[in-house]
């Protein structure tokens, strides 16, 4: 290999010597990407944001109401006793792996899963409890595509990367909003401050 190189195209030439595994991975995956893309269209985001609402909690009855094609409003009757339960991920498909689960409090959990492309899928699990047991409303609005998914793991919303979206809900009288401009860390921080304030 020449080391006394012309500077032009240096990085492109250096690419030749990247690790074998990347060369092989790329070649072996090439034929399958299209199929995976179709299957995981909504999941293929680097930060796919998902909301998971108490899908497995029998204490909560959620009533779904579609307002507009690209806006989802979910109303449900809160139970002051409602606490989050661990979601059952024991039957996840082979290609989806649980990466981590953070139990921040009884009413908020953050899950991170990896799909087979190695992309992260974030799930927020929110308790709907309120101090007075009144109804709560959660509105998900996106200028792009929202895909509502129902599965044995619960009901959640996937928002494609690049789409502008905002999610608003009331928690103990305070309004929480997460938008496409909010990073996961910021979202977590905002939520934790609300949870702490409510305690």
């Amino acid at each position, binding site marked *: 290999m020449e080391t006394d190189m012309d500077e032009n195209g240096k990085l492109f030439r250096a690419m030749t010597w990247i690790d074998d595994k990347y*060369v092989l991975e790329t070649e072996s995956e090439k034929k399958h990407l299209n199929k995976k893309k179709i299957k995981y269209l909504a999941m293929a985001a680097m930060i796919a944001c998902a909301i998971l609402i108490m899908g497995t909690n029998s204490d909560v009855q959620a009533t779904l109401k579609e307002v507009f094609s690209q806006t989802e409003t979910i109303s449900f009757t809160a139970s002051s006793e409602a606490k989050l339960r661990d979601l059952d991920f024991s039957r996840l498909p082979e290609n989806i792996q649980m990466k981590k689960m953070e139990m921040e409090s009884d009413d908020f959990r953050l899950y991170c899963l990896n799909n087979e492309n190695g992309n992260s899928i974030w799930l927020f699990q929110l308790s709907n409890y309120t101090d007075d047991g009144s109804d709560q409303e959660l509105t998900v609005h996106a200028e792009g595509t929202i895909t509502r998914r129902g599965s044995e793991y619960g009901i959640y919303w996937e928002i494609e990367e690049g789409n502008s979206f905002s999610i608003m809900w009331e928690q103990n009288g305070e309004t929480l909003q997460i938008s496409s401009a909010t990073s996961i860390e910021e979202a977590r921080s905002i939520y934790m401050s609300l949870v702490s304030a409510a305690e």
Partner: protein
Amino acid sequence: MKHREAKKKELQKELLEQQMIEKLFARSEDVLKDMETTYGKLCSRLISQILNQNEEDTRECMNDVYLGVWNTIPPQRPQSLQAYICKIARNVAMKKLEYHTSQKRHGTTVSLQEELDACLPTAKNEYDELELAEIMNQFLEKLDKESRILFVRRYWYADSVEELAKNFGYSKNHISVKLGRIRRKLKKYLEKEGIYV
């Protein structure tokens, strides 16, 4: 079932590679035909992409590729013959391209080079190719799998945006936007790693 089939194919491939490496060590010329059958299409496509579909140059380079493998194995004993032969093919193609570039015969690969050059904080730096490749390995490891494959297909295999759009099932615009984002990440990464000077 599919997983088992894939595993079986993988094992067959490994076995075939081992046989070819043994033939190279035994100086058996049969191996040239084996390589042509197994990797000919893959390598000629790679070379052709880099050399902007120049068939004559591609044929010429393929001969250099087989000669390169023949001359270096032994003593080399690569873990993956496929990756080894592909790297030789890319290197041979790059040298041919450099010749064309010096002769002012520019092509689309030059614009690929320029795209990556723009990620380097300065045009002049003291890192050699191997050091840069190691930094690229670290960067690739941090990418999600889809982005990594997209990046490698574009800047290693020199796939066109049209081909990428077809294979990934996205629009051409979407692919361009994604590639732009990855390049920006790369630029930041290189800056963070102190690739200045």
